[in-house]
């Protein structure tokens, strides 16, 4: 608008800034888990992910060796060593001996403790504790220090999550659910949509009205009766009630009204002449459908496929009701939900798992965005 009316520089600048702010708000959250999933797991809890390129500092606590380690030097009793022992070295910036003031002294300085006791701690972790009197007791002096480690990026989290947390397995389960649950409704809906658009039979208008009504029926209405039905069928035939076939059909059922609605409005708009001339040439409806309607409907079929794929892949409710939670059936969303409970504070596991669950939808979305948007427009501008 600014370019059209107020041609002021400020106005145009304002639009750019405003859009930039919106884009930032809408992308930074996702960026946060992507960056975190690639960080070292100790660093994730030590500093915010936005600081991940800076050295991360963290407060640590340790205990110096006890009296048995003391030596006599220049008439003083001294305990020497390195706080990190043989472990990985970090850089110490400050230290202290009270938990209320963990960074009271700068690294390298000499801290005066009571009774002439002094403690010096260097940046590399080396320390000298000296006292005019002999140390007593096995429990050494408690020390606190702030250490910093250089930024560290790793794919360890992905290894851990994919192979030992069961996310890899769930990824396969999600694909097993999603692919047939996308293709089956397309086939069924395409045939029905063609019949509803181009074939004459009694009850057709009623059927169309029913389908439009079913578009908005909440999923919740179906859950309990279907759960009972599945349990009943399972018990009757002595088969498990939670099966892949069961969830494919459930997703097919829930996706069909939208599929038929979307496909019918497109197929009904195909030119009549093509069908008529094919019919005159002796083609049956089946041949017309397979050879003419299906190829011509490719864009709308792609739109629906993307919708249904994203819907099924991202679904949690249907999967939790109709599919088990054993490793051979649990899908990614349900697995992620379970991890939220069992691995609550472990952000290296949660962020990595979350990123794995969204990577497929993001890929589908970016490569096929054109079709997705087209489906969205056709589906909702007309009143879905």
């Amino acid at each position: 608008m600014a370019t059209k009316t107020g041609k002021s520089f400020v106005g145009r600048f304002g639009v750019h800034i405003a859009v930039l702010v919106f884009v930032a708000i809408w992308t930074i959250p996702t960026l946060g888990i992507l960056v975190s999933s690639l960080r070292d797991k100790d660093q994730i809890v030590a500093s915010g992910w936005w600081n991940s390129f800076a050295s991360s500092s963290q407060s640590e606590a340790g205990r110096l060796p006890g009296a048995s380690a003391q030596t006599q030097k220049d008439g003083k009793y001294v305990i020497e060593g390195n706080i990190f022992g043989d472990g990985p070295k970090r850089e110490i910036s400050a230290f202290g001996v009270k938990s209320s003031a963990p960074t009271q002294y700068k690294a390298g300085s000499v801290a005066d403790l009571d009774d002439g006791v002094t403690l010096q701690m260097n940046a590399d972790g080396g320390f000298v504790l000296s006292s005019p009197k002999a140390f007593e007791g096995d429990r050494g002096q408690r020390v606190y220090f702030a250490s910093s480690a250089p930024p560290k990026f790793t794919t360890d989290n992905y290894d851990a999550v994919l192979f030992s947390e069961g996310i890899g397995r769930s990824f396969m389960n999600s694909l097993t659910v999603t692919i047939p649950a996308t293709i089956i409704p397309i086939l069924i809906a395409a045939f029905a949509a063609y019949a509803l658009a181009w074939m004459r039979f009694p009850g057709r208008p009623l059927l169309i009205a029913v389908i439009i009504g079913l578009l908005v029926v909440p999923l919740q209405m179906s859950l309990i009766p279907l759960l009972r039905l599945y349990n009943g069928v399972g018990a009757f035939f002595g088969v498990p009630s939670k099966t892949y076939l069961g969830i494919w059909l459930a997703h097919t059922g829930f996706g069909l009204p939208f599929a038929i609605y979307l496909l019918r409005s497109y197929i009904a708009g195909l030119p009549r002449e093509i069908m008529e001339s094919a019919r005159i040439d002796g083609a049956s409806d089946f041949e017309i459908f397979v050879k003419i309607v299906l190829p011509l409907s490719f864009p709308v079929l792609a739109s629906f496929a993307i919708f249904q794929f994203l819907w099924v892949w991202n679904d949690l409710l249907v999967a939790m009701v109709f599919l088990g939670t054993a490793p051979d059936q649990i899908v990614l969303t349900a697995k992620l939900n379970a991890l939220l409970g069992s691995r609550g504070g472990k952000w290296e596991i949660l962020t990595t798992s979350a990123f794995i669950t969204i990577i497929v939808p993001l890929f589908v979305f970016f490569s096929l965005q054109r079709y997705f948007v087209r489906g969205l427009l056709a589906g909702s501008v007309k009143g879905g």
Partner: protein
Amino acid sequence: MAAQIFSAIFVIIIGVGGCVAYFWGANKLLDLVFPSRGVSGTAAVDNLRRQGMVRPWLFVGPAMIILAIYLIYPVIATLWLSFFDRGGTNFVGLANYEWAVSDHDLRNSIFNNILWLAVVPAACTFLGLIIAVLTDKIWWGTIAKSLIFLPLAISFVGASVIWKFIYEYRGEGQVQIGLLNAIIQYFGGQPQVWISLPFWNNFFLMIILIWIQTGFAMVILSSALRGIPEETLEAAVIDGANPFQIFWKIMVPQIWGTIAVVWTTITILVLKVFDIVLTMTNGQWNTQVLANLMFDWMFRGGGDFGRGATIAIIIMIAVIPIMVWNIRQANKETGGH
């Protein structure tokens, strides 16, 4: 892993292949039973007519059967079950509805659902509209729209993890790894446990859905805005309208129908909101909503199907006006021909 991949491919082929086999086989069978080729003239015409009577049902048959089993029967059965006890065997009349009226959790859920309904559709539509208008004016608008649209592809559970990380809380004075508390602490504020903050925690959950759905509103409204004739806008400019007047008095009224559609679509979604509440709080700290409460009743202590069904009916009642409106709109559209 290899066995899993193999069995997955196997079941996929069986599932999809079975479906293809039905349509192909059924039509082949029809051609065999009533042959139209290779028979005498009148018989061929008769058979063609018979084929014409049967074939539509072959085409819509599977869809009708699945719709009947998965949507129509359950709607009736849910209504029926709402008059029965927890196991679904003993008729209890209106007892479940009496419980519904007096139950504290349920009342709380309805209140929260109303809160969601009041905030989320409005926020999504408003933000979507603003972003659609703004991005239309700049050269990198398409990229910006793509990025804002992106959360729509993310699952509610994934989005919940993303935002839980943003709301992460550490005690005061500690290093905050949650972005929101880090910002608050940077400006000298007190870090908060956002998802258990009384009343306001609902809004922190709503932000997640708004974040996801604004892209949807933006795309639809953006295409509607492009449908506004250029002359209308030019005329307004010539008459000296300022950008705000153009927005409120020209653009918004022109796309009013689309705004209504976006609003109702998000409204239906909000009524069914489940995943976000389940993963963020599971209804604790007074954030319960109907869909999550229903899920809870379905499985709590072996499940109470009667009460679960009653909650489903409450959600359905809220949707019915939109359903009626939809069917009327569709009839108006197809009524012309």
